[in-house]
């Protein structure tokens, strides 16, 4: 066995709030978020880099937080589903998913919301193929994706008008 593993001090912003924490090097970003910071909106689905339920934005880029060590997020800005609403108002993407019935059980939804946010922040009017590519790393076992695609379209319209 290796000698005692030392913890690593890291600082990161999560939903605009600065956190300075000590983590074991093997701690995954999703575990830091859920277990140390009590942000349980980010879900763990497959835990094997497949399903995308754990998707968060890291410096604006969608990542699977079960496949990033927390130490790698040192100095970065993380956005989770908890950071989407503003002043008690749902984010236009959240609202669109609700209005278009873009969810059923809701387990995959936090990840899909953040994948959608990366897409719409870089492409205001995505076409069908672009939308499908953008959520190809997010598995939903309930909806069949049709209403999710409608929700993304409607979110794009709402964000453009806003």
């Amino acid at each position, binding site marked *: 066995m*290796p000698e005692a593993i030392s913890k690593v001090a890291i600082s990161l912003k999560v939903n605009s709030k600065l956190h300075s924490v000590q983590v074991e090097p093997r701690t995954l970003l999703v575990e830091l978020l859920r277990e140390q910071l009590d942000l349980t909106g980010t879900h763990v689905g497959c835990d094997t*880099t497949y399903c*995308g339920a754990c998707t968060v934005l890291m410096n604006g880029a969608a990542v*699977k937080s079960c*496949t990033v060590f927390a130490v790698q997020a040192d100095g970065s800005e993380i956005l989770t589903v908890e950071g989407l609403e503003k002043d008690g108002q749902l984010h236009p993407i959240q609202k669109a998913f609700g209005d278009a019935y873009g969810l059923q059980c809701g387990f995959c939804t936090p990840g899909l919301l953040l994948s959608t946010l990366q897409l719409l922040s870089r492409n205001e009017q995505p076409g069908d193929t672009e939308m499908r590519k953008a959520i*190809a*790393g997010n598995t939903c076992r309930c909806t069949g994706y049709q209403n999710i695609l409608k929700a993304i379209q409607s979110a794009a319209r709402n964000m453009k008008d806003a």
Partner: protein
Amino acid sequence: MYPRAFHYHRADSLTQAATLLSELGAEAKLLAGGQSLIPLMKLRFANPTHLVDLNFIAGTSYIRKEDGEIHFGPMTRHAEIENSGLVTNIPILHDCAAGIADVQVRNRGTIGGSLAEADPSGDWATVLMTLATELRCLGPDGERTIALSDFIKDAYTTALAQDELVSEVVVKVPPKGSGGAYLAFKRSAPVYPTASAAVQLTMDGDICTQAAVALGCVGLTPIRPKEAEAALAGNELTEKTIAHAVEAAEPVLDPQSDMRGSADYKRTLAGALLKRVIQIAARRARGEQVEVSHLYA
């Protein structure tokens, strides 16, 4: 899932990373994008005692065009290549970068990590085999240059010494009149392909003057079927020529049956992909814009 506990080392430079590998020995591994290594560690298939993190080294993520070559920093993410204007004239690079796994994985995974892992189902090695590609490899004693074909030795095995790392990937820009294409067939976006095919052709009118072919997931390393290349080069690209090339490639393929498909299925699939990429590459060589992306089941 928790990986086995490990000591974490954050490298400030590539030279320091190589020195750390040398000091820490065989139980140390490099952490690049982590999109293969972290899942392997979580499943405890990989249990390094030390991880040397390359993610905080400045100046290792870049795409530069110089003297007819494209230089990629080892930590350049697939997504950066996908979105780079510098690769638009070499569409086979865009095909590859834009098709690897999904958005999230492309945002993290790196070209250097992909090549150094040498997964037989990886995309970059197969694609870059069809272009003149060299790897700069850095160790504690300095840098050496290795052609990609000499770099990939076997499944998950490269020419890198234990204390060496990929410090740059250099790809020669193909000549005018050359066109390429890459297609991978996947059951869904996040998984590895079942089979893949890459082709780079140089055309003079309807005559193919030069052909480079590589097939992925159908052997322990990407396979260059020289017989298929010979069937294309010097000939008019008719349907018959293409069929002949596909037929010539088949005997050198050595796929394994696994959960992605039987050996026979993969052989047939690789042939079908090869036919399609030859057709796309020829159209691109003539200057046509042809969009392709990985195929899903």
